[in-house]
């Protein structure tokens, strides 16, 4: 017994587990609160009324189905993600192709594009909040006035608020997509292009039949990261509209925040958080399958 133990020790069978121990302890420190949260989602935990604490099974989840705000928040979460991802990957592809074409000043533009990418998202939101002041003192409305656009009530109107959040999120994350795709373009092999040139392919055909298929793993990767982040967008919405007006920009994360930190209904808030988590898991599963297909097709 002790002999085999010692042999394992000498061979280093336990070594990787020993090396991992500190990280696993920290990891457990994250998983424990989460498990506690799952339990709370099955209770009527209301911070201000500790006496009402009861185990209610799935009541919090069932209640969600009858909650009109939940349906709207779910719609907004999915709709925003879809529009933001299509917009950002589309524009990002355009920017990447543009920068890939060896235009003058490419290195400078590429370096400057890191600026929006690396500042805190909440700071991005505050910068745009200043520029999107709804009065004529707002620089964006002033700039648009030259195009004959009447002053827009950016954060005060339903549509304006949704468009504002979309613009701000795009400003912060377009560089991420563009830089991933630019890196992908620069790593593409040259032979398929030479072959296509011999076949007499024009620039459009070249893009459609050579570049895009070869680039597809990078596109799916950018898509995945953007989709996962858009489903959970919080900072920008919190700092600009806080979910308003009339809950027009309330996504699941903002809704769960309001339930738990404004009304202190921790059980309900946690149930909403878990629904969002399940949504994220489902979308990531779909994207993973897309990723497998994209990387198989290029091999």
């Amino acid at each position, binding site marked *: 017994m002790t002999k085999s133990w010692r042999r394992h020790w000498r061979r280093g069978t336990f070594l990787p587990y020993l090396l*991992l121990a500190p*990280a696993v302890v920290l990891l457990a420190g994250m998983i424990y609160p989460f498990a506690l949260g799952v339990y709370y989602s099955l209770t009527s935990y209301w911070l201000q009324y500790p006496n009402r604490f009861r185990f209610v099974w799935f009541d919090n989840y069932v209640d969600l189905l009858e909650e009109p705000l939940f349906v709207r928040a779910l719609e907004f979460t999915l709709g925003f993600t879809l529009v933001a991802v299509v917009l950002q990957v589309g524009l990002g592809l355009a920017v990447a192709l543009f920068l890939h074409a060896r235009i*003058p000043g490419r290195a400078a533009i590429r*370096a400057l594009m890191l600026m929006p990418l690396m*500042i*805190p998202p909440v700071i991005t939101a505050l910068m745009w909040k200043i520029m999107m002041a709804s009065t004529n*003192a707002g620089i964006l409305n002033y700039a648009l006035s030259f195009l004959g656009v009447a002053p827009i009530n950016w954060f005060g109107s339903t549509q304006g608020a949704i468009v504002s959040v979309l613009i701000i999120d795009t400003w912060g994350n377009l560089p991420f997509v563009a830089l991933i795709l630019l890196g*992908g373009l620069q790593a593409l092999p040259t032979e398929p292009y030479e072959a296509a040139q011999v076949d007499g392919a024009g620039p459009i055909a070249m893009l459609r039949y050579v570049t895009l298929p070869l680039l597809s793993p990078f596109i799916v990767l950018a898509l995945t990261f953007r989709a996962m982040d858009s489903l959970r967008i*919080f900072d920008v919405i919190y700092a600009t509209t806080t979910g308003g007006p009339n809950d027009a920009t309330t996504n699941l994360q903002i809704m769960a925040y309001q339930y738990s930190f404004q009304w202190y209904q921790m059980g309900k808030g946690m149930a909403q958080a878990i629904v969002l988590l399940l949504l994220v898991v489902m979308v990531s599963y779909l994207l993973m399958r897309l990723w497998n297909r994209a990387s198989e097709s290029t091999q």
Partner: protein
Amino acid sequence: MKTRSVTYERTVRHVVIALASALLLVWTVFPFVWILLTSLKSPADILSVPPTFTFTPTIDNYAALVVGEQRGQYSSTRPDFPRFFLNSIIVSIGAVALSVAAGIPAAYALARFNFPGKDTLAFVLLSFRFVPFIAFVIPLYILYQRLGLYNTHAGLILAYQLITLPFTVWMLRSFFMEIPLEIQEAAKIDGCSWLGVLGRVILPLSAPGIAVTVILGFMFCWNAFNYPLMLAGRQTFPVTVGAIQFISYEQVLWGQMAAATIVAAVPQLLLSLMVQKYIVRGLTMGAVK
């Protein structure tokens, strides 16, 4: 005739490229320029209609940040920005130090050993990158209230492990895996133990990678907003939460908020210059090199 149309096409091409470049530049840089200008304006200049580009610059907004006063009005809502800045530094350094200390051995194990459960563990760590923060912050808030970790630096450092630990392990693993196995085998033949391999081969050869991981980890902590929003109080707010304190029920202090955004962004802009080539790699947890 032919040559004329070719030069015509070329001119059009150049104009289109110049316009597109200009558009991209304005879109990317103008917000920074405008916020910098706003931060140097007096309240009257900020509210001027139409917005003005010519004004007498003032450093009052920055002075108010440092002094922590609003110069006259609503002194009850004054945010203590120097303290927020210090909090950001303390918590970011603490979180990165803890993550690197636990992350180096973990990344070494995941990069160089084979053992049951390895892929599962790596995947669990990665999945934290995509988790909605609210699912963690609600129970953390309740726990922190009970344990006395609410509104403390230690509490924030622990909560930030959700951001930095998965990132650190995956980044370091990707750097460790780039070191050729032959060098490690040679060291083993020379009599190095696993500790010797780590200390004399892996760490020195991946020193630049570790530096990149530390800097990027620090930057991600600096960007953190939602965890401190719920788990910190006025004594421990970082700059990100501090900057929204200029929006109060009565008014928005545009000038000071602009100054605060500049102060919160500058460290990030300087640090990102140092790790330019690795930013995409860092943001994708090592997936894109």
